[in-house]
């Protein structure tokens, strides 16, 4: 296995898929000449030409609408939205077009497409550029929503996203692009809807996704020093959510904390906690707790931004309150 970055793993998945299938093309703001806002499509135009790597205007509703139309015609667009904050501008195209055409037209149409975008805070980009909307989009029947945390998952999940015949919102994390990890050279898929146990443990389950997986792993190391054996479950896919793996872990550890970067109310943590109490109520020794972002718009100043975000310290504090420490 080769070691590569999160960015390079995504790029490799794109290249492999585009080499196999002429119908796959990439479109989005700055994807060609610039190489992608976060460098994922770097040099792709040299490999596949302007026909298959298409710069677009800064017009998100149009980008996703055009991609959806192309997908309905049988092409397989991978459309990049520079950040998920701009997905709000495209929300109608995503929700009312891409996610609807199959069912509303009784299976006569479909929109096999990937919307690659970037979520997350921590880069001091202030209130409108630091948000997480996975909960909002995961509410929608007809969409898949994925949030990989490590390079291995990036490559396998992006391949699955490209291969499925329905629209996928593929949310990368701005702070993870340089993260390195082991990645097989050959193409492989990871099932959408399968969580991954990133660390085995028996005393408490930490449920996390995207950048928060790394916070959870950090916490698990700290706990190990104090004789507490934490299991870390990386959800990877938000819709569908892997209830089976979540519940299996909680039945083993009897305690769970969700670590999520998005806001607490009506979020992924709320959904996870509900499913745990529905399916593993008798196994729980404590309520399922959430460590989330403070419910405030993110500020620019580093001090203010960090104060609003979840951290290993905040998770440790939560565990102390639960008397796990």
């Amino acid at each position: 296995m080769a070691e590569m970055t999160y960015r390079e793993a995504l790029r490799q998945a794109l290249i492999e898929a585009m080499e196999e299938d002429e119908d796959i093309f990439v479109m989005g703001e700055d994807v060609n000449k610039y190489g992608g806002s976060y460098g994922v499509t770097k040099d792709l135009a040299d490999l596949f030409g302007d026909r298959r790597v298409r710069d677009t205007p800064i017009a998100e509703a149009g980008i996703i609408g055009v991609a959806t139309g192309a997908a309905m015609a049988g092409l397989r667009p991978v459309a990049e939205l520079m950040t998920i904050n701009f997905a709000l501008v495209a929300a109608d195209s995503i929700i009312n077009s891409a996610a609807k055409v199959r069912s509303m037209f009784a299976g006569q149409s479909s929109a096999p497409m990937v919307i690659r975008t970037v979520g997350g805070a921590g880069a001091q980009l202030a209130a409108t550029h630091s948000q997480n909307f996975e909960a909002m989009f995961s509410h929608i029947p007809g969409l898949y929503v994925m949030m990989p945390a490590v390079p291995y998952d990036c490559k396998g999940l992006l391949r699955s996203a490209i291969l499925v015949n329905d629209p996928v919102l593929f949310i990368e994390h701005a702070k993870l692009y340089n993260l390195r990890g082991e990645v097989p050279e050959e193409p492989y898929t990871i099932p959408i809807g399968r969580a991954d146990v990133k660390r085995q443990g028996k005393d408490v389950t930490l449920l996390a996704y995207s950048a928060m997986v790394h916070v959870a792993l950090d916490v698990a190391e700290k706990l190990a020093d104090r004789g507490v054996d934490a299991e870390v479950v990386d959800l990877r896919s938000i819709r569908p959510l892997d209830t089976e793996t979540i519940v299996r872990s909680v039945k083993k550890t009897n305690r769970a904390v969700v670590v999520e970067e998005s806001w607490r109310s009506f979020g992924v943590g709320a959904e996870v906690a509900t499913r745990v109490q529905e399916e593993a109520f008798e196994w729980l020794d404590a309520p399922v707790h959430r460590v989330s972002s403070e419910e405030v718009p993110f500020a620019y100043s580093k001090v203010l931004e960090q104060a609003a975000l979840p951290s290993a310290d905040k998770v440790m504090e939560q565990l102390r309150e639960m008397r796990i420490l």
Partner: protein
Amino acid sequence: MTIEGVMEQVQSREMSLDGLDLDQETLHEMLYTMRVIRDFEDAAAEWYARGQIAGFLHLYTGEEAVAVGAISALRPDDKLMSHYRDHGHAIAKGSDPQLLMAELFGKKTGIVQGRGGSMHFYDTEAGMLGGYAIIGQHLPLAVGYAFASQYRGEDWIMVCILGDGATNIGYFHEALNFAGLWDTPVLFLVENNLYGMGTAVDRASAITEIHRKADAYGMPNKRIDGMNVIEMHREVRDAVAQVRAGEGPQLLEALTFRYRGHSMADPELYRDKEETEGWRQRDAIENFEQVLLSQDMLTQDEADDIRRQAQQTVDEAVEFARDSEYPPEEDIYADIYDEDTGDELVVWT
């Protein structure tokens, strides 16, 4: 706006059949299709009143020349996307009126099995690729769909039909810019029926010559007489030939008028009865029939026959719809995702 005030803006030619590429049989078919649309909408209104059709019902009555004239200029493999007032477009594009009426009745035999209703007809076989009910939503879809023709080196084109109201929303400008930038083979056909819901064009748009909005994107554009089925045919034929030849997208603005309210819920308090009456006086169907009769392209017997056949087609559609079954409740779970997806790709637990 009075009909005179609007129509004097159109350099409408007399309805001349000279030099036309349509044979007598095709002209008769066009008259028949216009009558089917008119009768279909009358039947839809009747069965809505009788409680058998529900939801939003937007009727196309009065605008038949636009659909029939434009679509008669297309090849069968050309595609069409439309807005929520889509019955006429589907009928003209070749969808079976029985399946369309069954859709209005919410039956399993409907064109989209009772999932979409009046505003969301879709018929792959006919190339009628959807009625869309979020204003402007389908404009980028049409551009993207047409892009596939160009990407694959094929020569079918897309006609994207929209209303005057849709030219005021962001989607319109993004879609025209994309179409111009990528040179996609799409013809935007604006049906300017002078009202966006209950608000007149001059109360909603900074300019009322809507076709000129395409100037901003370097797109050839023209205002034409949407009450003249022959002019509609000629103009769309010429525009489509250029679009098909790879000369880039174009926009046509057809001036027309709906005789009925925006939807069945509309009491039409925003306009005078005289205005509607003025338009009815130059009814596109009656005019077309008169021209065919006067130029010996149609006998009175044939005209009567076409009238009867159209009514019979619609009567049969209603009968089919009434006799059809409602979908089974378990259909609510159908077609949300591709049901043939293997568990190597997706697992639901």
